């Protein structure tokens, strides 16, 4: 068990939830992961397609009423321990959508958030900084 913990601390898998985002932050997340210039895989991270494989969850978007139940169900499927990162100002505070009848922001009313990366959208380096912070928390949780 100790060996598995030591190994998995070096390779947290990322999972991305779009909670009604405008796609700006998702483009920045794709930029961070997919183009060699920013290359999040240097930190040992890898995007995965299934919530059951995830270690670090990146949430974008203000949690619209329409996706709320789906996001909460998806979040419940991610095994513990997990680290949650809110990317962009929408999940953190609601941003420009705060006060709208169509959003449930801020997201920390429903999901425990560990790291916030503000910006609209944040630049890829800022996301990398947030992911690095999340990895430190992830190492403590293991």
């Amino acid at each position: 068990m100790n060996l598995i913990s030591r190994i998995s601390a070096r390779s947290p898998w990322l999972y991305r939830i779009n909670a009604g985002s405008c796609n700006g932050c998702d483009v920045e997340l794709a930029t961070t992961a997919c183009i060699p210039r920013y290359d999040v895989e240097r930190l040992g991270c890898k995007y995965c397609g299934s919530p059951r494989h995830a270690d670090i969850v990146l949430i974008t978007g203000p949690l619209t009423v329409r996706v709320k139940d789906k996001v909460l169900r998806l979040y419940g499927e991610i095994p513990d321990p997990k680290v949650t990162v809110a990317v962009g100002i929408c999940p953190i505070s609601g941003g420009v959508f705060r006060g709208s009848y169509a959003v449930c922001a801020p997201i920390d009313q429903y999901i425990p958030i560990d790291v916030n990366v503000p910006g609209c959208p944040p630049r890829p380096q800022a996301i990398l900084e947030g992911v690095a912070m999340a990895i430190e928390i992830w190492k403590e949780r293991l």
Partner: protein
Amino acid sequence: MGFLGVLIRNLVAGPSTDPFPFGETFTPATLRGRVEYHPADCVACRACEQVCVGGAIRFDKTPEGLRFLLWHDSCTFCGLCAFYCPTEGITLTDDWHLAHPQSRKFAMVEEGTIPTIRCAACGAQALATAPAAALFDHPPTPAEVEEMRSYCPRCRRKVAAERKAS
């Protein structure tokens, strides 16, 4: 054998990956990051509060004066506040290191207060805002600005009119 050229070029040029977070990264000079508020230059017109798209800026009347609050977790870094500010009392820096743990969520604020004073001429209560440029017929010296700051708006206009007439 065309690949040899590419190989040698890449060996000489080195990796194109940005070294961050293990090294320094490139920050454009015009990048809009953390907002800075300068109470000494603020004329309290509250245009920034009016134009803020994210509703991040708030002015409150407190016993000490007029308090400015900006929450970076609601700011879109659009720069409208700095664009509409008549005196550069609010500016955007190029500091983008804003990622923070949840415990610091409500500490990501920029704060400043314009103090309430008693007018040096008439004794009425007023805000010590920066004097408008129209009060002077020449570029004011720092001493003149400080003197004008100690007056209420009505006395400012009176003093300015007297000086322009003489």
